């Protein structure tokens, strides 16, 4: 359950992660504490479990970071789609923005990260 929370957070789904943490996990942790002989022992066990879960999720996400660009490189179409281009700028290499909306800095960062993932920069 805790690993699911970590995965949700890794995908930016913080609200869902918060819900699982506040409801399901909170109940499970309360049960574990109740069934344990001492609260300190239960806390130590839970802390170890959470740490292990976080480490495994972090490793998995980092592994995906490496694997995805490699897959994208192999599966990438010859020409990326053209979705938006500012006036007076070359009509090429743009993607992902709402047509007609002026780009903001976060849009640029999105483009940079997309280029990084696709291995084209």
């Amino acid at each position, binding site marked *: 359950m*805790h690993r699911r*929370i*970590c995965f949700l*957070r*890794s*995908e*930016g789904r*913080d*609200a869902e*992660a*918060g819900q699982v*943490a*506040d409801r399901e*996990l*909170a109940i499970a*942790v309360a049960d574990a504490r109740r069934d344990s002989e001492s609260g300190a022992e239960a806390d130590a066990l839970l802390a170890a479990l*959470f740490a292990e879960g*976080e480490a495994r*999720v*972090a*490793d998995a*996400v*980092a*592994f995906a*970071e*490496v694997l995805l660009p490699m897959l994208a490189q192999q599966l990438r179409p010859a020409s990326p789609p053209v979705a938006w*281009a*500012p006036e*007076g*700028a*070359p*009509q*090429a*290499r*743009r993607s992902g923005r709402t047509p007609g909306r002026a*780009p*903001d*800095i*976060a849009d*640029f*960062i*999105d*483009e*940079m*990260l997309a*280029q990084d993932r696709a291995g*084209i*920069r």
Partner: protein
Amino acid sequence: MPIATAEKQPALLDSPFTAAPGPASSRPAAGKAAVLLIGLDLGTNKSCVLSGAPGSSDIAVSKVVPSVVGYVKDGIVDGIITGNARILYGEDALRQMLHVDLAAPLAEGVIARPEAARDFLLHIRALADPTGRADIRAVVGVPANAGEPAREMIRRSAQGIFSRILLIPEPFLAALGFRDDSRVKQPGYVDPVVNSLFIDIGGGTSDLCLVQGYFPTRDDQVSIPFAGDAIDDIIFGELNRTYPNNGLSRITVREIKEAHAYVGPSRKPLEVKVVIGGKSRTLELGDAIGNACNSLMDRIYPALTSLIEAASSDSVVTLLQNIIITGGGSQIRGIDTVLQKRLSDDGYESPKVRLAGQDFRRYVAIGALKAARAARENQWQVLLA
């Protein structure tokens, strides 16, 4: 295997019951450190750090620091070094160069000495956050074509120092920093982010970048491993050839260059007073400095024209009006006029080359801090401690 970061991964919870982190806030929740944003131009010779809180436009710290770490030599008598520090940074390290082993963390724009880089980043952190308690997120400028190994080296050096990081090419950050946000919507204001060509001449690399309203691709950027340091090397070699055993250090040569650098026709006589062996001497350095600086022009110009020619025909006329030089190299006398004349002589349509101005050392860091303030939560790369 690059495992230093996990992109799109907000900080893992210390406790599963902690509220989900929302957008970066400078206000600390109970038991949680306040977020401090840093814009960092990690330069080969000089670095610039700006810091500020999220959700504001205030700049709390703005410092330019020589990118150098000094490790105090063994056997230095107590009291010689203030506080008997073991490591000095920046100007302090240079002032005590007799008593320290100087280490430059970077060479040609990328980290060359990881341990020194880590110590330097610790110093940067201390400058930005003297309390040592803030949760630091940093946008760091990298050379235009820095490869993944160079980027990974920065992330590894920053592990445990910054909590999150974003690496963005320097010339693009320079364009963001140069942009006057208060005038973007004014008629007549030429937004450098919409259509310009930036030339950022630093210590290790000269970076050229087309900025045309989208994030530059690899084809829009050129990084040349020839910049201020290479000019120093040429002048240093020429000085030793012309004036053998002159005893001038590279730091002195750099100071001479910074005071007298020029491009274009020879500016002789260019007499420079130096102290050699305790005696004052006047050296004629017109040719040495001119030849060294002109060799930079010979490398930049082909890269500049290749980027101009890569621009679309409907954007190139405006682009030619917006060629902007920044970085330490923008202080070379005549660099704007010589480049402009060369373009004009080669038939380019009404080119206009200008200098970024007095904030030339800060534009990359200003752009980096703007990017830090604008970055969405899921765009940061989390540094796994």
